[in-house]
């Protein structure tokens, strides 16, 4: 079946099976930046923004999100135009193997958004409660989100949100 979804600000027609998860549909269509660590809703590697809210794409049936907006980590920022959060992750050393990173970035993005760039440490910890990382022990990830929040606050007034410009 064909469904249309807005992915990373572009309207896409995806061919999906009626029993297919959003994770599988995305990966099968080249969005391999969305990772699969369990397909049971228990690791967060597959996080995407669905209408600006983070969801486990392995827990969403693709057919149920027709006409909605999906943002993957690349919709938040790209190698060529990285988001503050992504830069903060690298600066803080929150990226070891990086397999959890796409999901972590999505969750972190949402934390900043929900708290207006003013998350408490507890907001950060709770906001990342669906994302497993076995490499970092989370210390530097929590730090990175804090750093990104601070920087975002500083830049809030000066710069609009990063958009995807790679053609």
């Amino acid at each position, binding site marked *: *079946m064909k469904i249309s979804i807005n992915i990373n600000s572009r309207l896409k027609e995806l061919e999906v*099976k*009626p*029993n297919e*998860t959003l994770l599988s549909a995305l990966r099968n269509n080249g969005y391999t930046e969305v990772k699969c660590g369990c397909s*049971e*809703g*228990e690791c*967060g590697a597959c*996080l995407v923004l*669905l209408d600006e*809210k*983070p*969801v*486990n794409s*392995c*827990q*969403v*049936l693709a*057919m*149920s999100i*027709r006409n909605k907006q999906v943002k993957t980590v690349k919709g938040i920022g790209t190698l060529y135009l990285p988001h503050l959060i992504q830069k903060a992750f690298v600066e803080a050393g929150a990226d070891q193997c990086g397999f959890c990173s796409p999901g972590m970035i999505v*969750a972190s993005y*949402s934390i900043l958004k929900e708290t207006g760039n003013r998350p408490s440490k507890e907001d950060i910890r*709770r*906001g*990342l*409660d*669906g*994302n497993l990382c076995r490499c970092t022990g989370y210390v530097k990830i929590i730090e990175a989100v804090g750093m990104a929040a601070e920087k975002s606050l500083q830049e809030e007034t000066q710069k609009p949100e990063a958009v995807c410009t790679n053609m």
Partner: protein
Amino acid sequence: MLSENLTWEFPSSAEEAAGLLLRPGALLHAGGTRILKTCPKSVKLLIDTGGLGLDYINFTDNAYYIGSGVTFSEIVKYPAKGKSLPLLQSSLSGAASTPLRNRITIGGSLKDFPLWSSLYAPLIALKARVEILTDKPAIHTVEDYVSSGIIKTKHLIKHLIIDEESGLISGVKKFSILKFQYPAFTIAIALCMKGRMVEDARLVITGVRNRFMRFTKAEEMLKGKTLNELTLEEVHRHISPSFMSDYKFSASYKEKAARIIFMDLFKEIKGGMR
């Protein structure tokens, strides 16, 4: 895995959905998190509830009406007034994980009552009611909905109704070692106070052998008394939930832990009153 030979319907009204539900192999789809786990083989038709407009939270006539399509996180974020809703919010804020709460709905969580439910204990403690749509619409208390087996029938859940009780003091606690982990059990306490006197008490635990349990003896004991009149030991004696052992915890450990957590919660509520 769900079968590849599935069709989807996207009805735009509750009535239409209820009608479609009569078809063989039909199943309602809300967040889909449970459906993806259980992958029922018999399903031929998934009826998406996303377009039914059941994503409202209204407050009218001193009661909350929570549409079945409302997600856990929408409830948690709702700027609640009064005393009832905060109990539910407190429980749901600790359910599953942040991204899952964005997906898990009230309807899906009512229809499917897992041992780890974060929803049922507070709802039963709040004497919540559920309005369902079958051939004839009906309203049941959540407790009846489960006990009488209606939960097992085919129907569409329209919304929850939670009365605001101004004299309410309440609390909820789940038992799990990690934040994001299926809780072994959840305990909710709701006391309806008149002055310093307990007018009505609902002490509920879920995750037990029979899914849920009310500590009716303890409830009776509390009624008509002030909280200071009763010693904790007196209440404690009537807290005896019955569990099944699982690989992580023995039944006897869970019983012990449940009693302690119950008393902790009770003390907290009592303390909060002063």
